[in-house]
């Protein structure tokens, strides 16, 4: 937790209009834990690290410069999304997120590639997906199930 030496290589940074509000919401909805929050003294957050299951995201805002924008002020559009892979408890997490006000876009459902997945929008319309492997498939089985050509 919160140890710089153990930061995963990749960390998504998400822009919010109300970063402190978003941090509280992400803790409540998804179970994130804020390891670090750097405030600018005017209600803004210039850096934060929120941890969940060994992964982290950075929540910052309000957006400044560099073309940054929250989906909340961008017509609900996004240029990236975050995927969280769970070991267990996918349906329970979906229920928790829904209770916190997440807009569920795809209800939990088993996918042809062997994962159970739900997707939702958060408090400022950032898209999230959550997956949990429920059946381990071979590449050949996945190709047959999805109809896609798979290179690995």
């Amino acid at each position: 937790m919160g140890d710089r030496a153990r930061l995963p290589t990749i960390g998504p940074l998400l822009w919010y209009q109300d970063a402190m509000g978003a941090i509280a919401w992400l803790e409540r909805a998804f179970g994130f834990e804020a390891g670090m929050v750097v405030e600018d003294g005017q209600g803004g957050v210039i850096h934060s690290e929120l941890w969940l299951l060994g992964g982290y995201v950075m929540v910052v805002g309000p957006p400044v410069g560099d073309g940054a924008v929250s989906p909340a002020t961008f017509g609900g559009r996004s240029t990236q999304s975050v995927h969280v892979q769970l070991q267990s408890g996918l349906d329970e997490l979906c229920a928790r997120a829904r209770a916190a006000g997440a807009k569920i876009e795809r209800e939990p459902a088993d996918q042809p590639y062997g994962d159970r997945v739900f997707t939702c929008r958060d408090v400022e319309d950032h898209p999230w997906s959550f997956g949990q492997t429920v059946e381990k498939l071979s590449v050949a089985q996945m190709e047959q199930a999805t109809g896609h050509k798979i290179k690995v």
Partner: protein
Amino acid sequence: MSAGFRSALFYQDPKAALAWLEEAFGFELVMLLEDADGNVAHSQMEFGDSYVMIGQEWSADHKSPKSVGGKNTQTVHVQIDSDVDAHFARAKAAGAEIMAEPETQFYGDRTYRCRDPEGHIWTVSQTVASVSREEAEAASGLKITGWR
């Protein structure tokens, strides 16, 4: 199993993005799903202990920065443990649009920031000094809760 989360990035031309991210950042394509027309249905590129997913724009709400005036709702941070300047040189040579050259920050990381060919923003950092919270607060004038 990757350690971190997976950022999924939307591109007008995901195949070009796969090639560019390999050339510029050294990402390795480990999985590619193509439909019957050769379009990218899903892909994963690995770097360090993590990976990113490179895909197409797939709805009016899921767009490349290239399609929405260069705006970014999220960015990807890459934390490496050696030679951020060499990483920078490689990205620059591949045509990354440099927004900030490598510079050592008050919190002890050396960081650069760039845009890829479709305008996605990436930051890359290497920790080069151990800085305490008190030192970082004094240097920046910011209120810091928690510290790494």
